[in-house]
């Protein structure tokens, strides 16, 4: 009481808080500052710079001998001081890039379909499992993510090789007479990409299912719905928003596929992500490399936009 009165008195006497006190409401933003500066300095700024690079004129040639010192005639990775959309136009009109773009989308769709078909039943099984089995299954799902990605991919290379475990098993069982080519083609690419993504997909769907109100299932069955009817009319539709998040993660990740096509694919099955370093480092064409990177970014943003549209217009009940 006494202190409050004293403060009031001080204010009446023209007491003014110092700058330190006046800024007090903004101190909470200091908590954001370390991460914020990190994102601005190492993500936003380079990204903007990369966008600028994609709008420079490219040197237009490839091979050795270019990329000399900056400022030299014929040097640099792009023509400084220029503004042009030529890189984008070239990528969209050149059949070479068109094929890569189409394949990237096709591959992403294939990977997403396979991943979702494998992930949803697995997630549902985990959701239904008893507490102990649930923990074991979740650990099994996360385990591959704890190992190095390259170890996983090279391991797969060995497993799927002509004299690998899979082929030996197929031969042993008499399913095939000679080894099937499983590696350096679409099979090995898809298998590895699915394996890299699926833990996240399963975890997101499992979390979604656990977030559903179990009394809704009780209510449905109490009203005469069989377990199957309950799943298809209540559990599955209610899991869709979260399942779409899982799908979003999967498709965005699949669009950026790099390791699988680079290590387990072949030159005919290349994606945009592989093309970026190829243009940038092999052709020393930073402008085109940057433009490809931004086209990938646009594709992923488009997927996110479509996702938002589906949520807002197709699922009005979430409002």
């Amino acid at each position, binding site marked *: 009481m006494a202190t409050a009165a004293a403060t009031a008195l001080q204010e009446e006497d023209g007491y003014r808080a110092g700058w330190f006190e006046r800024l007090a409401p903004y101190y909470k933003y200091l908590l954001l500052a370390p991460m914020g500066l990190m994102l601005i300095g190492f993500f936003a700024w380079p990204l903007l710079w990369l966008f600028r690079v994609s709008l420079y004129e490219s040197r237009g040639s490839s091979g050795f001998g270019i990329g000399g010192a900056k400022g030299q005639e014929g040097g640099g990775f792009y023509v400084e001081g220029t503004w042009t959309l030529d890189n984008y136009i070239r990528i969209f009109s050149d059949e070479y890039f068109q094929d890569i773009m189409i394949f990237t989308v096709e591959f992403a769709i294939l990977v997403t379909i396979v991943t979702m078909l494998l992930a949803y039943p697995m997630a549902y099984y985990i959701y239904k499992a008893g507490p102990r089995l649930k923990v074991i299954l979740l650990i099994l799902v996360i385990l591959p993510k704890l190992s190095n990605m390259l170890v996983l991919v090279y391991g797969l290379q060995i497993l799927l090789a002509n004299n690998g475990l899979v082929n030996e098993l197929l031969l042993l069982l008499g399913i095939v007479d000679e080894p099937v080519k499983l590696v350096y083609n679409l099979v090995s690419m898809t298998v590895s990409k699915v394996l890299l993504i699926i833990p996240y997909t399963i975890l997101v769907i499992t979390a979604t299912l656990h977030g559903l109100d179990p009394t809704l299932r009780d*209510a*449905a069955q*109490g009203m*005469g*719905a069989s377990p199957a009817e*309950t799943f298809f009319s209540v559990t599955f539709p209610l899991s869709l928003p979260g399942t779409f998040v899982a799908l979003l993660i999967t498709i965005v990740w699949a669009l950026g596929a790099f390791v699988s096509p680079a290590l387990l694919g072949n030159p005919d099955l290349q994606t945009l992500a592989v093309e970026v370093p190829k243009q940038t480092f092999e052709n020393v064409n930073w402008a085109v490399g940057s433009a490809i990177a931004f086209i990938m970014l646009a594709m992923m943003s488009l997927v996110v936009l479509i996702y938002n549209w589906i949520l807002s217009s197709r699922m009005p009940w979430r*409002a």
Partner: protein
Amino acid sequence: MTESEPVLKVVEVTKEFGSAVAVNKVSLEVYDGEFLFLIGPSGCGKTTTLRMIGGYETPTSGEIIIRDRVMNNVPLDKRNIGMVFQSYALFPHMTVQKNVEFGLKTRGVRKSERHDRAREALRLVELEKLEDRFPSQLSGGQRQRVALARVIVYEPDILLLDEPLANLDKRLRDVMRVELRKLQEKVGITTVYVTHDQEEALSMADRIAVMEGGNLLQVGTPSEVYNCPQDAFVATFLGETTSFRGDVESVTGDIASVAVEGGLHVITRHNHDVSTGDRLTISIRPERVQISETPPEQVDNVLPGTVDFVEYLGAHALYLIRVDNCDIMLQASEPIPSGKATFSKGSRLFASWNLDHVVYIRE
């Protein structure tokens, strides 16, 4: 009502969770069109009993019989029961109309008939204009009505209500109480209602079953369980009461005199089931105690005392009275149409009550 066969029979039902006994040999019969309340404090086993009737739990022993059919092993989707949950459990992704049609759809009712019957049920709960809304767009009271319409639409054998009004505010709860009772009468559906709210039970029930610690203590009409509780817990759980312990000193005809701890003597009517020396718990409801400035005539128990505390409750005043020459506090309530309490703290008065209003429970 009682001459017809019961729709629901709960026979010696016990439910154990591990070593804990949630429900202990409960037997209960509910008749056609009856509104039965299961009431008790939290953890008394009332909800578990309800869930066993609904098929959400399996009894450890005993039988649940609905329309002469033992239901213990019948899965819940094969029982014709309507359960309203405390959280309503409406399907958030379906409109009100689709929610109400759900139980008809699972029964294979044709689309056009489904539509008409759902409309009829929504009309009954006065929600016919909101059929295209989603549950998230409804108020608490409206959700409650959808939850009701959703089960009465398929005409279940029994309606089960699990604290259906607990999530509503006081005012709405009072309104819904009347509406629910009216609706139940209109539809004529056999109903079991679980609550811990004694006011709800007393005002709405045909019969009340009081449970405590997994045991069923007493079943009876509201006035039976309120006026003639057969158990000390029932007496204290339903309504306010002042209880004393005492020993029977003498018995004359159907009147007994009881010496209460603290040096008080109370006379009560009895059913020829007490004899001298018995130990009894004596209860008197505050509203059965009359208070006056002068000693009343022709009243059996009269005690002089001093007002120790006055609780003003608007419609009535509740006095805590210190009885002269003994260590006993008595509660008395006085209706106050004038809006003012007659006595104040320290007032001298006489508290009296008729011997018929004394409730005794043998220990």
